[in-house]
C-alpha cells in the first residue's frame, strides 16, 4: 500500500462502461500506461485510446490545436503552461524518473561509482544529442560529479538515441552508461545489463517529475477524473513502479513532490 494512494471505486467507474477515453502521455511512460490501461479496461469496460510520444511534441500540439482528454507529461513547467493556457483543468504528480548506471553482464570493467566513468580506458556510452532526459540531464549529472570532461573523452559512442545506448552496452561496445532506470525495464532490454544504483545526491536536477491531468477537452470530465484516480491508486501506481519509476504517492515520491514543488497552481 502506497503512503498516499488515492482509493479508486470500481463500481463508480463501471457507470462509464462502453465509453472511450483518449489519453496522451510522454512516450517514456508508454510501457507503464499500457499495463495500467489494460487493467482499467478489464475492470470497467471502458476503452482507452492511448498515444505515447515525446511529451514536448505532444505538449506543443496541445498548446496549439491538438486535443486529448487526459495528458500525462514530463516536466512540471509543461503542465503549468497547459494550466495557464486554460487547456488543462487540473494536474497531479504522477511519478518520478530515476537514473542508474548500467554495464554489460558481469561488469567487465569493474564499475562501482560514477567516478569510474573518468577512469582511463573505461569505454563510456553517451547520447548527448538525445532528447533532454537522455542527453542533457546525463551530462548535467556528470558535470555535477566532476567527471564530465573525462567521461566525454572516454566516450566510444556519442549517439542521439537512448535505446541505442542500451544495445551498445548489451553487445559490449561500451563498459558503462548512465540511463533512466525505466530503460532497463523495457522488455527488449530487461535482465540484459547489470544495474548500479546512483545515490540521490547524484541524481540530476529536474526534469524528474511526471504529472497527470484532466484536459478541458474531456467529453466526460467525470470519466477522465475516474481514470486519473485509478492511475493514482495502488493498482495504477504499481504499474509505474514495475517500470522503474518512483510512484508519486510512495513515501519517496512524496518527498520529491515537496522538494521539487510538483503542485498544481
Amino acid at each position, binding site marked *: 500500500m502506497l503512503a498516499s494512494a488515492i482509493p479508486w471505486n470500481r463500481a463508480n467507474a463501471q457507470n462509464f462502461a462502453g465509453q472511450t477515453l483518449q489519453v496522451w502521455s510522454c512516450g517514456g511512460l508508454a510501457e507503464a500506461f499500457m499495463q495500467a490501461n489494460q487493467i482499467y479496461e478489464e475492470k470497467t469496460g471502458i476503452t482507452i485510446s492511448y498515444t505515447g*510520444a515525446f511529451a514536448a511534441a505532444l505538449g506543443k*500540439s496541445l498548446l496549439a490545436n491538438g486535443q486529448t482528454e487526459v495528458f500525462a507529461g514530463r516536466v512540471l513547467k509543461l503542465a503549468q503552461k497547459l494550466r495557464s493556457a486554460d487547456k488543462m483543468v487540473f494536474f497531479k504528480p504522477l511519478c518520478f524518473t530515476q537514473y542508474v548506471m548500467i554495464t554489460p553482464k558481469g561488469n567487465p570493467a569493474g564499475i562501482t561509482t560514477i567516478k569510474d566513468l573518468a577512469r582511463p580506458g573505461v569505454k563510456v556510452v553517451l547520447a548527448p544529442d538525445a532528447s533532454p532526459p537522455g542527453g542533457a540531464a546525463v551530462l548535467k549529472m556528470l558535470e555535477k560529479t566532476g567527471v564530465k570532461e573525462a567521461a566525454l573523452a572516454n566516450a566510444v559512442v556519442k549517439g542521439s538515441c537512448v535505446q541505442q545506448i542500451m544495445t551498445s552496452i548489451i553487445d559490449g561496445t561500451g563498459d558503462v552508461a548512465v540511463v533512466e532506470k525505466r530503460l532497463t525495464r523495457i522488455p527488449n532490454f530487461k535482465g540484459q545489463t547489470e544495474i548500479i544504483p546512483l545515490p540521490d545526491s547524484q541524481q540530476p536536477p529536474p526534469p524528474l517529475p511526471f504529472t497527470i491531468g484532466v484536459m478541458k477537452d474531456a467529453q466526460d470530465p467525470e470519466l477522465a477524473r475516474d481514470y486519473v484516480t485509478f492511475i493514482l491508486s495502488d493498482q495504477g501506481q504499481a504499474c509505474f513502479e514495475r517500470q522503474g519509476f518512483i510512484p508519486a504517492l510512495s513515501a519517496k515520491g512524496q518527498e520529491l513532490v515537496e522538494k521539487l514543488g510538483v503542485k498544481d497552481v
Partner: protein
Amino acid sequence: MSEKKNNRLVPIRRAVQGGMLLLLGQWSFYGLFRCPFAVPFVSCQNCPVITCWGRVTSLFWGFWLTLPIIGLLFGRAFCGWGCPGGLISQLSAKIAPFKLVGKTLFHRVAPYGKYLALLTALALWLFLNNPRWAIPIRIGEFINSIRLTFEHAETAWLVRTLTVLSFITAGFLFSNLWCRFACPTGGLLELFKRTALFSFHPTEQCNDCDVCQDACDMGTRPAESNCTNCGDCQSACPRNAIQFGRLKRKQGKNLLD
C-alpha cells in the same frame, strides 16, 4: 503450353503477394509513415516505436537474413513477388497511361537512380549512424499517429517521405516509377541478380522482337536490368522463347552486361 503456364502463374503470384502483404504490409506502412529514422527498416533493434511489427516480432532479423538468400537464388524476385510496395506499383502500372518503354538515353540512365538511392541510404545508415529525423510516436491511434509524426518531423524526414510518396503516386501515371528508378532495395537486389541462380530468360529462339518489353510493366526484357522475375512476359512471347531456370553463365553474362 506457355500460355497455360502463365495463366496459372499470375494468380499464384497474386496469392503470394497477398500473403506477403499480410506479413510485411504493416511493417512497410510503419517504415514509410512512422519510422523516425532516416533509413527505415534497418534500425529496428533501437527503435522506440512499440507497436511496429519490425520491432515486436522477429520480422526485422528474419527479413534481412532471408532477403540475400532470395536475391542469390532468384535475383529481384522479392520485388515482383513479395514487396508490398511492389504490389502497389504493379497494380497502379495497370492503369498508368505512360509505360516509359524505350531505348533512349533516359531509359539507359534513369535506372541508375536506384543505385544512387542505395548509396545515399548506405551512407546515412553506416556513416551517419542513421539519424532520427522524426519524433517517434511510440504507440497511438492510426490517423492521429501519422498526423503527429508529420507535425513534428524534421524537414529532412518530410523530404524523404514526400519524395517516396511522390514516386509511388506518380506510378499511377508512369509505370512502376519507384521500383524502376528509385527504390534502394531494388538497387541492392539488382546487384544480387548478377549472380542469381534462377531467372526467366530468353532462349536461343529469341529474335529480339521486344514484344516482351512492351508487355512488361517494368519496361524491360527477361533477365535484363529491372526484371523482377514476375513471369508476365512469358505468355507475350510469340515464339515461346522465354523460360525459367538456370541461366547459362555465358548467356547470362551477355544479357546482364
